[in-house]
């Protein structure tokens, strides 16, 4: 692009504003509207990318009937934060010593982002990420869920997630082998 005005910050701002004028409006199941940059949405969500490419974006709010307003707010928040984040030096250097491919550890802001969520909100967000085909957000939320399980006994995990033990006696006997790995303490 030809530069015809001044240089420096003003120029930078102008370019950015220009490039980002394009946004998409998303409508939650309970009818609330959220605006998110088209670029971020297309980059982070395969489903939204498909809708944008296919022209099925509604200017008055694209209906996402499966996603509640709280979860959609988090999705949009994540997209915005992602656009603002700079890949941290720690992430780059860690890939040299102990490469974590195919999964990259969550960055500090991503950790904070999921840490502040209630369990219910986390559940809704992971489902929304799955529905929207947001691979990175799905990874980050699933990482959080796995962190909530690590080192815990099945009973403790049930307590965290409020899950009922629904095994029959026969099944309990069957999973005893699996449990042996976890509980064969000295």
């Amino acid at each position, binding site marked *: 692009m030809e530069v015809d005005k001044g240089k420096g*910050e003003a120029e930078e*701002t102008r370019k*950015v*504003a220009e*490039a980002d*004028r394009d*946004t998409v409006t998303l409508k939650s199941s309970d*009818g*609330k*509207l*959220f*605006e*998110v940059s088209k*670029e971020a949405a297309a980059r982070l969500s395969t489903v939204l990318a498909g809708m944008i490419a296919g022209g099925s974006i509604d200017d008055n709010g694209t209906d996402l009937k499966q996603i509640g307003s709280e979860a959609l*707010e*988090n999705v*949009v*928040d994540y997209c915005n934060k992602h*656009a*603002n984040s*700079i890949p941290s030096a720690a992430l780059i250097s860690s890939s040299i*010593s*102990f*490469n974590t*491919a*195919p*999964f990259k550890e969550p960055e500090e802001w991503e950790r904070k982002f999921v*840490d*502040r969520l*209630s*369990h*219910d909100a986390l*559940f809704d967000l992971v489902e929304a990420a*799955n529905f929207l085909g947001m691979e990175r957000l*799905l*990874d980050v939320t*699933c*990482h959080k869920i796995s962190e909530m*399980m*690590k*080192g815990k*006994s*099945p009973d403790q*995990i*049930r307590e965290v*997630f*409020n*899950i009922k*033990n*629904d095994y029959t006696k026969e*099944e309990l006997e069957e*999973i005893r*082998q*699996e*449990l*042996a*790995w*976890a509980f*064969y303490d*000295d």
Partner: protein
Amino acid sequence: MDAGKGTSAEKNHHASLPVCARNGGKASRSRAAAPAQTWCSTKCASASETPKSDDAQEPQHRPWADLPLDILGVVVGRLALVEDRARLRSVCRPWRAAASLHRHPPPPLPMLVMSDFSFASFCAEGTLTGAHRRVPLPERETTSDGSVHCVGSSEGWLVCVERNKGPYFCDLRCFLMNPFSLKIIHLPPPSVCAWHFGAYRRSLPVVNGSGVVNCTINAAQCVMSFCKVVLSTSPDSGSKCIAVAICIVKGSVKLAFWQSGMMTWCVCDGDCITEFIDIVFCQRKLYMLSSSEFTTNLIAFDICEDNKSLMISRVEGSVVDLPVVTDIYYETLSIVVEWRGKLLMVCKCSGDTEFGHMIVKFRVFEADLSTNPVRCTEIKDLDGDCIFISPCNSKSFRSSDYDGVGEDLVYLIDGELRPENSVYNMKDGTVASLAADELDDKFWVPGGGLMNATWFYPPE
């Protein structure tokens, strides 16, 4: 990859959300009371930035047990330890079903199994922890005095022997165990008083070498004690599984061969065997690295499939032509390992440092098996793969198959030299200590002696 930088991205963000940016916090406050169509943006909802302090107290409404299959699959993939995965499966029926149906999670990380079956978990940060638990043994295979030991592993299988605690230093039983299916395969006993069949013995000359290798089956008396057992393949892989044991027989070192269908071990001895350094399967042959006074030799054993005859059809020796060492370090060629069908030799280089005599670096050589003497070329990377080495087995694999395992790294569990557990980065040539908290005493047998450990690869 990520768009935007610092301040300009911030402006960008505000520009993209005009409603929110101008209304500030107001938008979020009005949102709760607003009817169906309300503009919302999270940028305004600053209250949500603060972490929820006590999430244990909050009521749980969402049906976590019904978490969609693909999501739970991703969660399983994020649990690197086999124990954590076992616990997840044990929570409820839907989770168990989902965990077993999931497409391809990365395999759980390898674990280090000590000879007493206690195991340490290898964590994604590259540390070893635990060894508070033991690999569960089926009840009928255990002994009250803990005389069953682990002497090797292959894929999902462990090689176990029962040591005789009596006056004779020998093993009474040998079996392969899959600790997940709890399947057991009994191998012929390493020690027998007398065979009813006649002993059969043959001497094979060492082609291109000196001396002979004597192979014997059905020897009148046999009292072997296994130090390390390697398997050609997993016993449930479909192809024939061959086991080779480095064993001590009345104070001298021998090799014992077995393949499925055989009723007895084929025991081999010879001068080249007593000087062994390490053994490994490569290209359907067993290779043994051995040293004599002036040379390092690679002995190849051709194994015939016919289980009615002696297993060894040919023994060939070659001198290993190691590049001249100009370093001041003391080098010990100590490990052979198979890598993508090729044979690698790993050399520990030790020297005197301010912390004492320590491993300073490693050198890894690729052996050209088509030449005699065997030409060795030093390599500086593993094309992203890594090698796990332990006294009872060594294995190379693609680090991308695992979460948290680095590229071009050599993980060594040693015991002879400090650091006993080290990680060598082939690319930058550095040696780091493989952190093993609370594990130090686990590497030693009560009463002295190194506790032989083996890397074990749990299947998914």
